[in-house]
């Protein structure tokens, strides 16, 4: 899809849907939304739907940042404690590395 060839109300519709669907534990969708519509929201000359698009872009950014923090802290916590959690860590692992505790 090429945003340049889209009407403004179509853009708003798309941005809104991306934002909504992101609530289904899809932080990457929020991230895509934020990056994709960044130019539309902040760099294009003003138009009617821009204000709303801007809002969705900002919320998507906040959402994806929060998710990123959560995921990063989990990854760090898991990697640091994997050996000491023992059986629990093995049970929630999809890949168990070879040759390390």
């Amino acid at each position, binding site marked *: 899809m090429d945003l340049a060839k889209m009407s403004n109300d179509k853009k708003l519709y798309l941005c809104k849907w991306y934002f909504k669907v992101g609530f289904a534990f899809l932080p990457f969708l929020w991230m895509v939304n934020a990056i994709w519509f960044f130019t539309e929201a902040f760099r294009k000359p003003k138009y009617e739907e821009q204000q709303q698009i801007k809002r969705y872009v900002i919320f998507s950014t906040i959402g994806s940042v929060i998710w990123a923090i959560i995921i990063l802290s989990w990854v760090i916590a898991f990697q640091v404690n994997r050996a000491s959690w*023992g*059986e629990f860590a*093995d*049970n*929630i692992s*999809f*890949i*168990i590395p*070879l*040759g390390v505790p």
Partner: protein
Amino acid sequence: MNLKDFLIIILKLCLINSGYAERTKDQMYEIFDGRTTCFRRLNATHQVGCSSKKGGSTGIIHYVETLSDLNFIMENGTGSSYIPVMPLQLLKPSTLKLILDKNLITGIVLYNNSALESYTHERSCPNQMSNVDKTCNTAWNPDGSGILYQDLPFPVHYVNDDDLDRMKACFSKFNNYSYETHSKRSLCSVELDAFMFASTNTPTCRRRSQSKTNLNPVKFCDPLGGENVWSTLFPMDDERARSKSFVALAARLDTTSLFNGVFPGAASPIASLVTFLSTADYLKRMVRDVHNYEMNVLFLLFNGETYDYIGSQRVVYDMERGEFPLKSESETNPMPLIRVKDIELYLELSHLSKGDGIFVHNTAEKSDFFSTLQSNNNFSRLETVDGSIPPASIHSFLKENAKLRGAVIANYKDAYVNKFFNSIFDNVSNVDYHYYNTSDYSTIPPDSIQSFTANVSEMLARSIYSKIVGRNYSGGERVRIELVDELYNCYLLDADCKVHQAVQRKKLRETPYNSYGLYVGVTVVPNLLTYAIGLTLAWLTGDVMPDSGLCVKENHTPLYQYFNMSESLDNLNSTLCYRTTMNFSEAVSPAFIIDDYDWKSGKYSSWSESTWKDLTVRMFLKPAPAHERFTLAIGSITMIMSMIVIYFVKTRADVLFATAENCSPTNC
């Protein structure tokens, strides 16, 4: 020269080159046999042994002859990491501490350059925690360094003389000068790859091997284990025979060493194993015409005894659960159950290489067997030893029945005579064996290991005879020293020997003999030597049946097995049908078959062996760091340059590539 000629020359050159087709990888590396490497084993709490880094540990070769050579490189080595090539005797706890303290050594290559006085990496008290009293009051193996049970964070490899010469040559050519410039020039290096999959301990690697969520299921470790061999002197085929109690004659089947693939085990277990087989053979011939006997003899050969008595623990476990030799007593199973309490007297053969006497280590509950032995004695020194019992399978039985009467018969009193216990040097020269290959037994000298073993067998067999029959032997049978000679030859020198030819069955014959080894191994790989030894026991204690051609009995009973085997050592080609009571029983620690076994309890052996993919050793010339940086820089610059070029080509595509109408399908 025109273009055509030029092209032909180029083509010819290509053809010449293809004659020496060798991959760059193969030109760079010199490959060694990497099998004789230390590997990782695990128990309920620890990991022991060695492992390289994933993909191999690399270091600059440094040839070491004395400890000062090693100290020299530790202080003056300016390279990033070193792998010393050092003599075996330097591998001791003090050296390891030195190496571990300084993070410069990434692996060890060992070689042998002289005759050693002692070499054993077993503990000073083998199997201490599985013995009855769990103490180490007597250092049975006084020289034991315990390195077999140490966790080494680097690979340790043992090289033969040819490989050592290659390494030494490379070292003197490239490394052995100007040590202060080691950080600046290209050096001869070696890569040891012995990466072990398992880690931490047995419960952890077992759990991970069985993990259901693991997307890439890997087996991390296998339990150590194999098969025990057992047999009875008199078949238990009638009520009278079943009611008899037993004299158990036991020995161990396995040994270990620090290096994969080298498990000679001459003094222990081979000497005791040969004594065991020769005793069984003599006993069988003595009782041929005996019909009234008071006790039966239970022959037991345990496997995995080196690792906390795997085999005997399992036999005792099975006996107490009413599953030895077979699970239940029913109509179809005429095999009576044998329990620990049925064993009236338990005799175990420990190290029985030549020593200055025979020592009988008694259990707390005394038996009168020692006096019987004395009456049949032909040794200048036969002593009874009371007090602590040496590490032996009898500990598994004593744990179940502290009142068991028994003895461990060995050539040592309070410390092993064998200075190479569980090492690669417990080999043929350690027992001073020479093969005489004779049917004339008088040519075997009286001070040979053969005579020693034959004398022990004779004393034992005659004593056991008077114990089970109730009177002294008066027949004309003698112990067969020529059989002892042959058996040693089988286990020490040539596995394709007469005895193995006599008992071999097709399946075993097809397997190369060099795969024979006395290490218990893992349960998933059958130990062929165990089968060969079992069949030898069957051959020596079996009864010859009138042959109907097929050598199978119509009504199938687990009491007997039937084998076609050679008539005698002198007549290998004519076969007879032997009926034997010999059978195998699983030697897997109960810890691995009890569903909710508490690993922390330490009740049973918990040893397992890590899995691995490759054991390789290769030598190569490591480029100077400046050279390496240069190569990296060239590569990086090429990549960046190509990106820039591509960018410009792409942005100016319309100029460079003239298209018909500058029209892409999507725009039109």
